[in-house]
Structures are given as structure tokens and as C-alpha cells.
């Protein structure tokens, strides 16, 4: 009988221990999720001020956050790097589905905003300071962070596209940068016939870039306004899209472009080794390439950039790949304060300057775009070429914006599959477009949308 109280005590301890483990786990999750201010990667300058948590993965995030904290006494930012792109979105998605653990402010790329907006995960910033900064950004920049009539992000940087190319290869084969896609194909053929490398890469893992190409032909893949909830327009097999996919399918078939995935070590090694005559990419690409070791040693001083080839040089279309914004999460304790951070962080001169000088970002702030120091900047990666003035600023100014939808994730995944089908020759561009349309429409209907 004596054992009983002892046993009871042990049992209680065991139960208490298990419960404690549960709660401890919960707390740990919160910290990891960034919902708690006690776990910042940066130093809080003014510990008395309210704290706003922020997830961001810009390489210079720490400096940017420090700049902000020093200039603002009434609010402090607690920054966490939750991983780049997909990693951060997966965590954010889990926090949204779980109902807690999301940061107050989150770095989001334009193409993901509609996905989170549809789940009520983001706060509309229209009344939270948007009017004050409205004139700082172009219409296209605002369109990318808007869903219907709401504004769901403070634009930071964009990715106006150009054609980065290797001057050594161009000299060797006596060619000049093509200005139209027709010329692009002809030049690629010329180089190939002379035994040269392929001209670019049509990568299955870059659906966002391929979507940008679609916009260049005047396609409107999606129509979406959450005000008419449940209605969506999907035109993925339009003539324009078939045209662009058939064009690339042709290049692949003729062996004029490679089909390797981009952003892999394999691809970068190829870029350094001169396997590609051009790299069709955005204004942030030099920073990315440099970070990966391109432009040092053997391939130093061989890079230059030119405007992206056009379908119709008489009416050029500028397109954009990538770029990001700061959005306020619906789990923010104080959305007004969070909005202040979203609009304020990465908006001061010091941060912006550092951002573009080190080619971490291509700023969308009009003041910077018009600044002669920015325009005339001689980009070291391009051997002193004034790339901003010549290529990227005009492209950014002419950019009209895209329409993103909550179907983006599924659309990208399906597009990746279809590009692969084009690349291994199992589908023509038109067939791929038809398959894409069919799959995305089916998914949209299954998700409760009415397809127009």
C-alpha cells in the first residue's frame, strides 16, 4: 500500500513532464516562426519601443534593419532569415494554416502575393500609408503587388529583363547583340554552324521567366479580381502563348539553346566555362552571378548587357522576372505599425544605395531610378558599362505589370512539367500550351473557381 502514493507521485511527474515537453515544443515553434521578439538575428537599438518581426532574405538584410532601427525610436524591427524563396513560403504557409507563428512583416515575391491573399494571410495596405508613398513607384510596380483593388505589399525591387552576353564569344564569331527574336534565332544558328556554343538555356525550372516571355508577346494568361470572388479567366493556350512556346520549342529542337536547369552548380559552371553565349535574365542577375563566382578569373571582363530581343521592334514590350515586396501578415499584432515597417525598411537612402551598388537589388523607387548617380553608374560586372541607363531603367519604366492569381503555385508546377515535355521532344509548344490550359482549368474548377 505504501507504494501507491510514490507511484502516484511518479505518474504525476511523468505526466507533468510530458505536458511540459508539449508546451516547450509549442514555444519553440513560436520562436522559430518569428512570432516572438526574443529571438532576433539583429540587435534591438531601443529596447523600450514596440517590436515588429520581419522575415527577409536579402543578402544585406542585417544592414538594412540596422539602418531602420537607428532611425526609428518608436518602433524596432526584429529580423529573421527564414530561408530564401520557397523555404520561407513553406514556413509562412504552415504558420498561416496553423493560425500562429507568422512574422508581422514578410518578404514576398510579387508572384506569391495573390496566393497568400486568397487565404486572407495578408493585410490590405491601401489605408495604412499607401497614399504617402504612392508616387514613389511606377504603375507597373504597384500592379505587381496588388490583387484586384487591394495593395498587399510595399514594392522594393524588381527584375527588368535584359540580355546578358559574353563579349568574347560575340567577338569570336563576329556577331552583334540581336534586337529581335528572329535575329536571335538567326544569330544562334550562325554561331552553331561555326561550331560555337548554344545561345541560351530554356530551363524547365524557371517557369517565372517563361511566363515573362509570354507577356512579351502580349499574352494575358490570367484575369483575376478577388472582388468577383470565384471568377477567373485562364487563357494559357492563346495564340500568343502558343507562339512563344513554339518559338522556344523550335530553338530546342534545332539545338540552338540548352535545356539545363538554371541556378544549379552545373549551370553556373557552364556559364563560367562559356557554354552559353547569352543569359536572358533580370537586373538582379549580375549580383547573383557574382555571388556564384561568375566574372572572376578566366571569365572576368567578358560580360556585357543589351536590351532583351523584341517580337516587334516598332512596339517594344518590357518584361520583368522576379522582384519582391514587404507584406504585412494578417497575424500581425499591430497592422499599422507593421505597415510602417513594411513601407519604411529598405526605403532610406543608405540602404537603397548599398542595395544597388552591390547589385543585390534593382530598386523600384522612382527617386533612385531617376537619380543620375544610379543611371550613370558604371557596373563593374559589365566592365564599366552603364547598364542601368542603357538597359534596365528603360525596361523598368516601360514595364506594365502582370496579373497573378492564387493558382500560381500549381500553374508554375504544371508549366515546369510542360517545359520538360518540350525539352525532351514529347510535346510541341502548342501541345504544351493546350495541356497547360487543361490542367490549370481543371485545378481552378476543383478549387471552387468559375472559369470564365
Amino acid at each position, binding site marked *: 500500500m505504501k507504494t*501507491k502514493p510514490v*507511484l502516484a507521485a*511518479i505518474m504525476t511527474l511523468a*505526466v507533468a513532464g510530458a505536458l511540459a515537453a508539449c508546451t516547450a515544443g509549442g514555444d519553440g515553434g513560436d520562436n522559430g516562426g518569428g512570432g516572438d521578439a526574443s529571438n532576433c538575428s539583429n540587435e534591438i537599438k531601443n529596447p523600450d519601443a514596440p517590436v515588429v518581426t520581419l522575415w527577409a532574405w536579402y543578402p544585406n538584410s542585417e544592414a538594412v534593419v540596422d539602418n531602420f532601427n537607428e532611425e526609428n525610436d518608436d518602433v524596432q524591427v526584429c529580423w529573421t532569415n527564414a530561408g530564401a524563396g520557397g523555404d520561407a513560403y513553406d514556413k509562412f504557409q504552415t504558420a498561416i494554416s496553423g493560425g500562429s507563428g507568422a512574422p508581422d512583416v514578410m518578404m514576398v515575391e510579387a508572384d506569391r502575393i495573390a496566393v497568400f491573399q486568397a487565404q486572407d494571410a495578408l493585410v490590405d495596405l491601401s489605408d495604412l500609408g499607401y497614399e504617402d508613398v504612392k508616387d514613389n513607384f511606377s504603375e507597373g510596380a504597384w500592379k505587381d503587388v496588388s490583387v484586384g483593388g487591394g495593395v498587399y505589399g510595399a514594392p522594393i525591387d524588381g527584375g527588368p529583363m535584359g540580355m546578358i552576353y559574353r563579349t568574347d564569344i560575340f567577338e569570336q564569331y563576329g556577331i552583334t547583340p540581336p534586337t529581335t527574336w528572329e535575329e536571335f534565332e538567326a544569330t544562334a544558328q550562325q554561331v552553331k554552324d561555326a561550331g560555337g556554343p548554344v545561345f541560351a538555356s530554356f530551363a524547365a525550372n524557371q517557369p517565372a521567366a517563361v511566363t515573362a516571355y509570354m507577356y512579351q508577346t502580349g499574352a494575358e494568361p490570367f484575369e483575376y479580381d478577388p472582388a468577383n470572388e470565384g471568377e477567373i479567366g485562364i487563357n494559357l493556350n492563346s495564340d500568343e502563348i502558343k507562339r512563344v512556346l513554339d518559338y522556344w520549342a523550335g530553338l530546342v529542337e534545332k539545338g540552338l539553346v540548352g*535545356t539545363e536547369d538554371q541556378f544549379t552548380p*552545373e549551370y553556373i*559552371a557552364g556559364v563560367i566555362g562559356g557554354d552559353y553565349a547569352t543569359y536572358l535574365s533580370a537586373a538582379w542577375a549580375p549580383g547573383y552571378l557574382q555571388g556564384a563566382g561568375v566574372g572572376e578569373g578566366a571569365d572576368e571582363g567578358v560580360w556585357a548587357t543589351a536590351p532583351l530581343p523584341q517580337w516587334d521592334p516598332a512596339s517594344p514590350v518590357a518584361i520583368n522576372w522576379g522582384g519582391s515586396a514587404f507584406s504585412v501578415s494578417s497575424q500581425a499584432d499591430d497592422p499599422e505599425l507593421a505597415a510602417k515597417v513594411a513601407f519604411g525598411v529598405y526605403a532610406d537612402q543608405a540602404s537603397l544605395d548599398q542595395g544597388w551598388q552591390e547589385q543585390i537589388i534593382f530598386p523600384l523607387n522612382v527617386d533612385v531610378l531617376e537619380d543620375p548617380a544610379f543611371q550613370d553608374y558604371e557596373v563593374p560586372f559589365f566592365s564599366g558599362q552603364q547598364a542601368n541607363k542603357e538597359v534596365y531603367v528603360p525596361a523598368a519604366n516601360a514595364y506594365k505589370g502582370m496579373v497573378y492569381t492564387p493558382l500560381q503555385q500549381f500553374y508554375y508546377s504544371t508549366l515546369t*512539367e510542360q517545359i520538360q515535355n518540350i525539352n*525532351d521532344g514529347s510535346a510541341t509548344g502548342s501541345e504544351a500550351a493546350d495541356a497547360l490550359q487543361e490542367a490549370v482549368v481543371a485545378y481552378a474548377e476543383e478549387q471552387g473557381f468559375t472559369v470564365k
Partner: protein
Amino acid sequence: MTTSTASPPTKKGSSLFTKKGGRRSTAARQNLFGWLFVGPFGIVFLALLVLPIGYALYLSLFQKSLIGGTRFVLFGNYAKAFTDPNFLDGVWFVIRFSLVLIPLQMAISLAIALMLDIIVTRFARFSRLMIFMPYAIPTVIGALMWGFLYSENFGPLANIFGIFGAEAPDFLSKSLIFYGLLNIVTWQWAGYYMIILYAALQGIDPTLYEAARIDGASQWQIILRIKIPLLSPALLLILVFALIGTLQFFNEPKILQDLAAGSIPNDFTPNIYAFYQAFSLANYNYGATISFALGAVVFVCVYIFLFATRKRGSFFE
């Protein structure tokens, strides 16, 4: 959940205490101690295994869509999964993969184990360690490493084929990814299975060999007539391990996806498809359904297999 595990033993214990005395109370006390020892495991088991599975089952009965919210659909998701070509293709892939992988893996590990059993030099010990080593390397790192080895720019394959003036096969391409993965998994697991078989070989009574030799049996005859038959329980064991593991194929393709997105789509294997549904499309309900559907497929496959081999099996006693 914790109270439910804690209370039954106390209740049972106390009722026995009051009703009967003497001898019974000793048994009851032993009973109580039994529960106490099982308790910590039971709590963890319930909290980390039974509850999440129950919750996943619950989730799988609902359907969430972007418009219109969540609805109760009972087995609707399962009906969808078993007619979903993406899921079925993934299942068909892992079944095909198992059919090639498992015999290959077993043949290799058996051959090595038999060889190492015969050679008794220091070299054998060293080889055993080396062959086992891939298993000690985390799957993720193994997959990454092979991703680089297959690479046309970094990998040795290009050089080796270059000597003969041929072009190296691209094991990350859509047409060869099957063999690329086959090689990685075999490399990773053959050493582990070899150790199991080798240990089983060590357990065979050496007098059997002696007797066989006296009867004039050759080395081959000893292998075929004595060693392999006596190894059959161990072989069956690794077969079941391999079957379950392969049907749940996830790590290697998921890692290689970053290097070869086009060759490994998001519905490559059922597990990858479940992951994609849950974490990319935020469709936790369908993700849970696919996991359960995969569980059902694994169960059926393993059951068929065990049923087919039941007469052999000292393994099942």
C-alpha cells in the same frame, strides 16, 4: 491524451487491491509496475504516433478549396486519389522501381556477404567497413554527392567516357533518372543489407561446413545447399524492409529535384506528391489522403508478399 494513459493502470490496480488481498495484490503490484515501465513509451507513442495519425485521418475526410472553404466529404478524397493519374503514376513508378531495385540490391549484398564470409584476411574487415560506409552517410548527403558525380561539368563520368570519345549518359535526364536513382539507392543500402546477411552467416554452425566437406561438397555446393537456405529468413527480412522503404521513396528524388527539376516532377513518387499537396498547395487534406492511400498500397503489397512466401518463412514464427 496523457491522462488517459495514466489513469487505466491506477484504476485497475486499486480495484484489484481492494477486492482481493494476499497473493493477488502482488500480481496487481507487478501489473502496476509493468504499466509504469511501459508508461513513458506509451505516452510518447500516443503523442507522437497515434495522435498525429488520427489527426491525419481526420484531415483526410475533409476537402478544402481556395473558394468555398472546407467541406466534409467522407471518403471523397480517397475516391479522388485512386482515380488521380498523378498519384497512380507515382505508385506505378515506385512499384516498377521496387521490382528492379530489390532483386538487384539483394543479389549484390548476398554476393558480397558470401565473399566476405569466405575471405578471412585483414582485407576482408577493411572491405566490410568500406562497403558499409555509404549507409553511414546521411541519405541527403549521399544524394547530393551523386548529383555532383553525375554532373557533366564536375563529374568523373564525363572524363571516363571522354577517354573513349563517347558522351557520358546524363543520369539526371528524364529518360535515365530511373537508373540514376537505382544506382544511388543500391549504393546506399547494399552495405547495410550485406551486414545483416553477414551477421546471419556468422550464426551458422561451422560444423555443418565440416560435415559437408567430409561428404565431398565443393565450396559452391556449400553456398548453394547450406548457406543460402539457412540465410532465407534474413533474406526475407531485408526484402520486407526494402519493399516498405522503396514504396515510400522520398529523400533521394526530393534532393535531386533541385538539380533536375524537369526530370523529377512534383508527383514523381506518392510521398513527394503528398508533400507537394500539403506544403506547396496548402492542401493538407489531400496530402493526408495521399499518405493514407500510400499506406494502404504498402500494406497490400507487403501482405501479398508475406502471403506468397508464408510457407518458407521461419521469419514469421
